[in-house]
């Protein structure tokens, strides 16, 4: 097997505290997969606001999730364009100071124009007494290639300083 190094940073954004959504646009179509890594905290006055990750301007999706918060676990779904579609929970501004959530979203085979695009988000928000873990599977229900991804949270609240989002490209041999 031929080996080649990969996992290439495409772009990174660092929150200034005054922006409620970040978008990666004009994503290069030259990788096999793209991976979005987030480290984030919202200005929303809640402990665990919702996280939203939307490819291609956020239309056409459906999703299924599995969630656990330490005392219960549950599963739910939406059909095409129904339901709010939080890809997980994050840390809000009423949580313990300096605590951030992390998540990763995997878009496999994102640039093909033959199949629908599945994407999978795993998010973790732990505040010492509250929080939870989400695994969120979604589909674009479209054969269009993914060329942009937007990230926002509940009530369009601002992302707090310290938040970073990085998009990576992975190329298979």
């Amino acid at each position, binding site marked *: *097997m031929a*080996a080649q190094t990969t996992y290439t940073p495409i772009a990174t954004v660092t929150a200034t505290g005054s922006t409620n959504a970040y978008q990666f646009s004009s994503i290069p179509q030259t990788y096999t997969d793209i991976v979005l890594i987030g480290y984030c905290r919202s200005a929303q006055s809640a402990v665990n606001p919702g996280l939203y990750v939307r490819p291609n301007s956020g239309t056409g999706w459906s*999703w*299924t999730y599995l969630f656990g918060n330490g005392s219960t676990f549950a599963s739910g779904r939406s059909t095409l364009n129904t339901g709010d579609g939080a890809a997980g929970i994050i840390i809000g501004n009423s949580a313990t100071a300096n605590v951030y959530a992390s998540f990763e979203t995997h878009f496999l085979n994102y640039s*093909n124009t033959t*199949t629908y695009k*599945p994407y999978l988000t795993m998010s973790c928000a732990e505040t010492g007494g509250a929080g939870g873990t989400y695994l969120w599977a979604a*589909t674009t229900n479209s054969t269009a290639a993914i060329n942009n991804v937007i990230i926002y949270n509940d009530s369009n609240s601002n992302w707090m300083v310290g938040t970073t989002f990085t998009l990576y490209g992975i190329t*298979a*041999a």
Partner: protein
Amino acid sequence: MSVFMQPIYTQTAGSGGIGSMAFNNIPQGYNDFVVEISARTGNSTIAQPIFIQINGSGQPAGTHAVTTMTGTGATVTSGRSFGYTGDFLYAGNMIPDSSATANSFSNVRITVRNYTASTYKPVEIEGIAESNVASGMAITDSGAVYLNSKPITSIYIAAGNFTFAQYSTFTLYGISQQYATALPSTPSIGAVTDQAGFASVAFTPASNDQAVSYAITTNPSSSTTYVPASPALVPTTVGTSTTYQVAAVNNLGSSSSTASSSITTANNYTSLGTVYTASNLSDQFRFTNIPQGYQHLQIRLFSRSINTGGTYATCYMGFNGEIFSGSNYANHYVYGDGASTSYGNATAAGQGNIPNLPWNAVTANYFAVTIIDILDYSNYFKAKTVKTISGWDANGTGRAQFASFSWNSLAPISAISLTPDGGWGAYSHAALYGIG
């Protein structure tokens, strides 16, 4: 005749301790080697035995024979084990444990004579677990024979199921009884190539150089690696421009080459291969001859099944040619299907289970995302553990799933097969990556 004793590698356990210690790729240029151990462990029976594994797992039955003699200050006992069928040599009580006086550490020496010869290898082990309490002293001498004519290239040391405590140290020395008459001649540095987290350093020894080993150092300084011959595989700091020097070593000193050209390793995530099908495929996806130079493996699977026999499609994973045979695999999973949750397990199975894929009745074009992590795949002293996150959604049906399985084998993983119920749907692909 003087004896030349060359330190080859040393490690000190940091905070939290270490589970075991292994010296691999032992240079073959010495007559004998010695391991010096100053250690403490976590059992509560005053003195804990030491276990030694030579040349990895999978040794044939009867590989070790050992005779021990132990004195505690009150009694003396002796025992013998012959034809032992396990991979480990039990070398007697010589490691102080958690009930011993604080800060008490062992003094253990393991000596292996003529370790590169094609004869059986005698092993001498002597150690003390003195902790200054009446019931706590143990002095053990062990004589053992490694009943194998292969040269010894690795030695693994453990204290049963217990961790070696912080500050425990392990040092490997090479011993030469052939006293050099001059400084070794200087080797020539060669090409350095990126091996994704490692650098492969080529060099050419001088003729009749009187060297017993070669030491590769880095600039900026991060490590010294001793090897018996070119090329040397040296750990690197990813993203840092680094040069390398090789020094020939003998009892009189060393002679260093000039520095290599600098090289900056790109990252430690490497694509190893992809399997893809453009049409429906009733066969396995296979990865074979997997390189052993990485720390972990990851498989990124984009797939659906053509199973028509039910309302689900599981994918099955097997290692090293095993699949649907034996009972080496144990599985656990939890999933949500949008309406309910479920969990389960399967022990003594013949395969690892990778959770549910879209099956034939699911509308075309819907695929699953599956990320499979296989940690420490190339080690030979742990069973292998596999972690999977996966999910798919088909606008009304779907799954989100966590799963794990273990493969109860100490063999390094060199081949992987993936077999879904029914076969692969068109456009499915699996990509294998090496990490670290």
